[in-house]
């Protein structure tokens, strides 16, 4: 088999982004992935840090934080490149790393993020007079009245109206937002007709669950062309159409660029000559298969996706290359009682430590493999969930690793 310029292990957000960047450099890229990663579950928004200006806050992070290794300038370039490639698949993202944009969650609270799909950008809510909230007949896990009750707390001066909407979703399975998005693809008229009846004007906004199709902006554009009010999608429980749109947009870019993408391909080992990885072996078929490469990017998603494992307590492993995994020692540092509290969780700081080139290092800071780069949720020294930085670290580490 011909040697790849770069093999990316893992097809989640970090892996797809790294593949896009490398393909844009006209490299011969192969992606090996086992399972479709967390994008179909994710909100679609890319969080960088939960603060007014993530860009400013990054400067104050401790040196071991992945953002410090990537560098603010690179993070900014990554964010711009991300918006550029998603827009090529007709999926528009708004935002920049020096600001945050509000999003309405499924329960009507506001959440802030730096890169947000245009369809979810709720900035304009504050300038609206009246806010309609669609109550879609038969849709699971979306409660318009709860949403209104919560959102009123942010916007006490506005008029809210719950708008019953029958999209003819009944008569089959239980309908999630994914199902509704599937059913509405190519059938946008029924939604447009339903929304038209509200007679909403430019001064109004209509909040709907994320059901505007699964391909970029196509379904949304179709509906929007017939409605004067702004239509704003919320987040939802998984599976999440905005996450799936993002996954498909990135996949489209890879396909256009001739990237080889192999599913059901679980990497089990690497082969090395000294400090150089020469290739990887997949073991999910009936016989092992070797894929040679000049460079490897490890984007296997940390604990959540099997990139890191923990068979024994206090002894986390990286199963492919057996890289050292940093973790806070001692059970007392391991977690704090309040799982969803405001303090970081020790266990979620666990991960692989790197140098500024994202090469894995040992406890003395010595580089283990010169052509192996670690990205995304595998990286240690950061509690992604606590600081709201999972997406931002994923795309910026991916960009840096792929540009080296």
């Amino acid at each position, binding site marked *: 088999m011909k040697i790849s310029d770069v093999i990316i292990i893992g097809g989640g957000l970090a892996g797809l982004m790294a593949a896009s960047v490398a393909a844009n450099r006209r490299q011969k890229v192969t992606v090996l992935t086992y399972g479709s990663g967390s994008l179909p579950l994710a909100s679609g928004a890319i969080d960088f840090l939960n603060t007014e200006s993530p860009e400013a806050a990054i400067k104050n992070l401790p040196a071991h934080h992945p953002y410090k290794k990537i560098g603010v300038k690179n993070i900014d370039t990554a964010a711009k490149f991300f918006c550029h490639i998603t827009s090529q698949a007709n999926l528009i993202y708004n935002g920049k790393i020096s600001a945050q944009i509000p999003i309405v969650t499924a329960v009507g609270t506001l959440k802030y993020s730096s890169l947000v799909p245009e369809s979810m950008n709720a900035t304009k809510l504050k300038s609206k007079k009246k806010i309609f909230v669609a109550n879609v007949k038969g849709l699971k896990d979306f409660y318009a009245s709860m949403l209104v009750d919560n959102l009123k707390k942010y916007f006490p001066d506005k008029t809210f109206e719950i708008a019953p909407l029958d999209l003819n979703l009944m008569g089959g399975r239980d309908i999630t937002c994914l199902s509704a998005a599937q059913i509405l693809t190519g059938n946008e008229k029924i939604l447009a007709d339903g929304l038209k009846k509200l007679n909403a004007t430019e001064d109004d906004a209509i909040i709907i669950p994320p059901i505007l199709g699964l391909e970029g902006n196509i379904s949304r554009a179709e509906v929007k062309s017939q409605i004067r009010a702004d239509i704003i999608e919320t987040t939802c429980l998984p599976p999440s159409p905005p996450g799936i749109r993002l996954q498909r947009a990135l996949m489209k870019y890879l396909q256009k660029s001739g990237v080889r993408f192999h*599913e059901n391909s679980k990497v089990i080992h690497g082969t090395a000559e000294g400090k150089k990885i020469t290739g990887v072996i997949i073991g999910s*078929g009936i016989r092992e298969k070797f894929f040679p490469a000049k460079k490897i990017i490890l984007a296997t998603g940390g604990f959540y996706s099997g990139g890191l494992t923990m068979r024994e307590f206090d002894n986390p492993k990286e199963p492919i290359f057996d890289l050292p995994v940093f973790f806070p020692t001692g059970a007392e540092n391991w977690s704090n009682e309040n799982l969803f509290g405001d303090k970081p969780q020790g266990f979620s700081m666990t991960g692989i430590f790197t140098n500024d080139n994202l090469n894995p290092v040992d406890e003395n800071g010595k580089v283990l493999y010169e052509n192996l780069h670690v990205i995304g949720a595998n990286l240690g020294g950061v509690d992604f969930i606590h600081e709201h930085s999972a997406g931002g670290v994923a795309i910026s580490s991916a960009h840096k690793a792929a540009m080296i």
Partner: protein
Amino acid sequence: MSDATKAIFTGDRCLSCTACMANCPVMAAIKEYRGPKLVGPAHGRMHFSQEDVEESLNYCSNCKSCDRACPAGVAVSTLNMLQRAEYYKKHKQLRHENMLAHGERMAKLIRKMPFGAKFANVGMNVGKFLGVFNALGLAGKRNMPAYASTSFKNLFPKIRQAPSNKKVVLFTGCYTNDNEPQVGEAFVKVMNANGCEVLIDEGFKCCGSPLVVTGFLDEARQNADNNVAKILNWKRKGIPVVTPCTSCSLMLKEEYYELFGEQEMREAAENVYDAFEFLEILQERGEFNENLKSLNQKLLYHVPCHLKSQAIGLPAANILEEIGGVKVQTADAGCCGISGNYGFHKDKYEISMKVGEKLFARVKKKDFDKVISDCGTCRMQIHHGTDIKPCHPIEILAEAYQ
């Protein structure tokens, strides 16, 4: 692969992450299907212990897109097929289900008659015209696969091959044998060009894939036992079994074990290769014949679902790009929708065409010289949906060895 790949042990690994549902083409096409997570792992756990029928299971096409999305190694589609078999223990298959499951038997009957294939093909057209198809429950809008006048196994003895101590056994698969023997001929030519003599084993039966999807699990098990014994015989002689059909190879390599869990199925699987997987291994060993004539062709490659599930990369694309002037572009348009005999059922026809829409649109762009796909029914579906007739990648390679 670990022991834990036997399907019924995998259901408990389900994390309820819903990734499989996001990837299921049938769910995307219709709202009646409740989808892989619910039907396979969740419902499956109850179902094996008590009688409980999930009606919508009937919609699963066994395309395996769910398995490939799953991060936890749940054999979702096989769980579905096992449950379908449970259902058919208590319900009799309909006439058309029986027919579609037993293509091999039908073809044999027909070939026993003088001019059988010709009459059968005429009969199929007349039958279609008179609406017999619809009445039977077959998709009347579809052409049934036409029988070749001579099956590959009848043709094979007439092919002259140089004897060689390197041998491979060709597992023809029903479609190559009965409908497209030219694929078998191309296979022989390619193997000969690579110094391998091709053998045929008359004792092989249909791999059983059409039986499994229509709930004839006991019969599939008989075929599996028969084929596994034969494959192990060849294994003892050091002769690999190779097939150009990706659904057959998936069945022999992985699904037998997932379904039935016998250790010897695993051992047999180690001796089974997809045709291009085999050629790529030859290439890695430096034994691949690179004396290829330039062809100057742009090929659009529809990668069959059942190849994507095998974890062997894209060997056909890699090998064909060794031919001077050949450029392979993958279609990347998802499942073609036919999924074996699924799209031949009258009540599944519309679904199968809806699933295939993206691929048809991609093919209709016509920015290539030929469409290729390793799977016979994928090729039929593309032909039906676009009027453009694809070929097997091995036919292209055979051409380059001229």
